[in-house]
């Protein structure tokens, strides 16, 4: 039962008294800090394991589901390992269903990801991921970008933004929703592009 130490210890203090919104937000802050930065590496590894883009999206989404379903996350000692283990486990199940077991893809793990974990380089990469995420704001429609910047960087509430811009609060809310969706799509596309480039490099290398 206590096979792995990434199981949390203790319980989330006072969870019962928290609103769902507050509970969700705390979880999200933790995930932003501990999971999101590792996502590019996990995606990269999945590509190395020859998972299709669809499989990758599905596996990543499933792993976020797992993080969402846990009673508490703060006691996970190594979120990167935990994240990676979920994905690998799910990939294994997928492959079992497909009756294909590419052993060499399993062996490649350490080289691509875990030998470095959690090296300063990866921390830097996590920072870069955030920088890139912020850069995606530039691609948003003008009002959308402005509203998100006011909310995120100027620290105004949605109500204050609505008053400042002379629009309704629901317009502010909708703009945030639209902007967030677009950022997320572009973020995933970016990751895919980076991965495609890596794949090409790999193929070129083998060809020579």
């Amino acid at each position, binding site marked *: 039962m206590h096979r792995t130490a990434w199981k949390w210890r203790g319980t989330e203090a006072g969870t019962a008294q928290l609103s769902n919104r507050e509970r969700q937000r705390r979880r999200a*802050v933790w995930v932003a800090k501990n999971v999101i930065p590792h996502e590019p590496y996990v995606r990269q590894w999945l590509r190395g394991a020859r998972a299709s883009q669809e499989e990758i999206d599905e596996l990543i989404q499933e792993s976020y589901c797992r993080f969402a379903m846990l009673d508490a996350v*703060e*006691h996970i000692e190594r979120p990167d390992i935990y994240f990676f283990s979920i994905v690998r486990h799910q990939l294994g199940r997928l492959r079992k269903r497909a009756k294909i077991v590419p052993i060499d893809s399993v062996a490649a*793990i350490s*080289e691509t990801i875990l030998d470095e974990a959690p090296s300063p380089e990866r921390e830097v990469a996590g920072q870069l991921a955030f920088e890139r995420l912020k850069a995606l704001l530039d691609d948003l429609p003008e009002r959308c970008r402005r509203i998100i910047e006011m909310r995120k960087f100027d620290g105004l509430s949605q109500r204050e933004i609505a008053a400042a811009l002379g629009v309704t*609060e629901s317009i502010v809310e909708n703009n945030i929703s639209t902007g967030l969706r677009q950022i997320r799509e572009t973020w995933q596309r970016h990751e895919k592009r980076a991965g495609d480039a890596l794949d090409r490099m790999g193929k070129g290398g083998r060809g020579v």
Partner: protein
Amino acid sequence: MTRSRTQEIDELAAHWVARMDSDSWTDADDAELVRWCALDARHAGALLQAQALWSALGDEPAADETARDGADDVQPPARAIWTRRWMLGGSGALAASVAAAFLFRSPDTSYTTAVGEIRRVPLADGSTAAINTDSKIAVALAETRRSVTLEKGEAWFQVAKDAKRPFVVEAGNVLVRAVGTAFSVRRREGGADVIVTEGVVEAWAKGADGQKIRIAAGEMAFIADNAAIERGAAAGGAPTAERALAWRSGKIDLAGTRVDAAIAEFNRYNDRQIILRDPALAAERVDGVFRTDDPIGFAQVIAGSFDVGVDTSNPKEIRITGQ
């Protein structure tokens, strides 16, 4: 799952995040959110991902603070982790040695651990030693020097600062000297591993005083009896110092570790030895954090990961059988 369905979920998740961020969140919204999450297992995951991206866009200092309130040990000081892990360590042997640790000890004494036992002992100078499985240390605290002899095995020391009395660990032919710092020494065939978690230590082989090397926090090195030095290396190939020292909390922390090296680690802690019957597996890699006293759990993970069997019919062995 079709792309459009995934996109639809993502879209709804973004709506929820924007709504949660608003100033007009109500109890009804709260209840509706719970219902929505219950509709489809993917909803909660999509919501969490969107919300985390939203959170990542800005620092949200207030949010950070609440997160800390909610989980007081997300990033506590190293010593606090230490204590808590120790107390929650679990196994009976561990608990017993914690009790023993508080008994008074004379300044010149030796400590031994059995296979699987991990012990923490406070030394009279205020330092602390954590002694790993199947190990023996002898401690002599003199006025000008604090000496520890590692007769076998491995130990980690949190050294109390005392510039007048250097703290020297002798492991066979290898010497490690610290003033106030934390480090571990493990005796191996032909030398010793030194891993530093705080500060800096000097290490050298007897008779090669001119070849002292400095090892800083986060670094590890193998010092051979013949004074050869291999930096960045430690048995088992643990990639970081902290991971290599997971044993202090009764854990084995594997990250891309070779299966044969991982098995050797488990076998240090258990009389019941893991035997690998399928040599093809030796070079595979494993990851995860395990309890030192749970070799069966580890073997089962190997079996599940590589589609091999585990034979536990012999109480003295755990056999990992071929495919």
